């Protein structure tokens, strides 16, 4: 399983990548939505992307909308991972095409539980 971590904070990227690594994912990182889109356009494939909302150049919401508009990566699962915690923002992210939403701060088991919901983990690890 391959995961792409998209966040403008290097520290945050490392934290999320470490959790995903523990769960058995091979991870890559991108500093904003545009970089991530470049990687996809270059033919890199991922099973899941964990996407920060607020980033320069292209933010998480724009990235999700761009991926969904292109129909080229139908198997890519999109999880918004953000400090934005208002109900309306969750609604906007889902409407743009996010599959799941996690609010920072979060614990490793929270990310594992969301991946479990999406069928991206064996059951034992989604507990």
């Amino acid at each position: 399983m391959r995961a792409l971590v998209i966040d403008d904070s290097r520290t945050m990227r490392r934290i999320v990548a470490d959790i995903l690594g523990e769960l058995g994912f091979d991870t890559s990182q991108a500093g904003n939505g545009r970089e991530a889109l470049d990687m996809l356009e270059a033919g890199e494939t991922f099973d899941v992307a964990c996407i920060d909302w607020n980033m320069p150049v292209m933010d998480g919401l724009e990235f999700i909308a761009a991926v969904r508009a292109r129909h080229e990566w139908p198997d890519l699962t999109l999880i918004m991972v953000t400090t934005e915690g208002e109900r309306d923002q969750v609604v906007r992210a889902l409407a743009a095409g996010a599959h799941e939403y996690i609010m920072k701060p979060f614990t490793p088991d929270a990310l594992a539980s969301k991946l479990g919901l999406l069928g991206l983990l064996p059951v034992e690890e989604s507990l």
Partner: protein
Amino acid sequence: MTISAGTFTFVADLVRRCSGVQLTADKEYLVEARLQPIVRQIGLEGVDEYVDTLRMAPHGAEHDRVVEALTTNETSWFRDFTTFQVLVGHVVPALIQDREASRPLRVWSAGCSTGQEPYSIVMALLDAAPGRTVEITATDISQEALRRGRAGRYSQLEINRGLPAGMLVRHFARAGTEWELSEEVRSKVTFSRHNLLDTPPPGGPFDIIFLCYVLIYFDPETRREVLRRVRSVLAPGGFLLLGAAEVIGVGDGWDRVPIGRGHLYQVNARGAA
């Protein structure tokens, strides 16, 4: 810091007598970790000193507090997604076909902790059995857990644990730093204090009983007794669900329904006899 052997023995014995839960010797850390906050709150020196005060007093509220502290379990929304897939994909369709539409679907969430399990069941049933009346009886031994369940308010950290974002949007509203469940969901759950070693709670017979990650805390004899009581309030054709990662024998009276990876059981002829 560690606790004395005498302290551990006293607490383990108290918890076993009051709840049936077995604290094996390797759970010393648990006793210390769970009692430390109480000790700090009271302003005592340490867990040993606190337990000494309990030893000298007749059984009272403070003893109950210890039992609660040691028997409250980790929980999350839709814990074991496979269990809920079995509920929605097999159990509910079978019951809808089998039961008159006018009859409520009755569910017992045994060992419900702070409410995530019974509320997850309601959210799943609202989708899987639209239009059906559902009545959930949620029980736990911990008054504090029940109080939190009744309140129906959860922190962001709790919300993150397993609640699908779509369910969050549909059934919750922001309440300050917390999230509050809708009245529609909350009104379907009745919380009450119950010890699994006592007579089963009112609200049955139940079509579905959730007994997830509960039996693992009991010794084999206590398990049999709990299962006997559970069976006595399971409606004919009803289903028992255990946790998906629980590898536990339920005995002769039950047949495992081979659906997916969930641990789903029904009473067989021997169990009904």
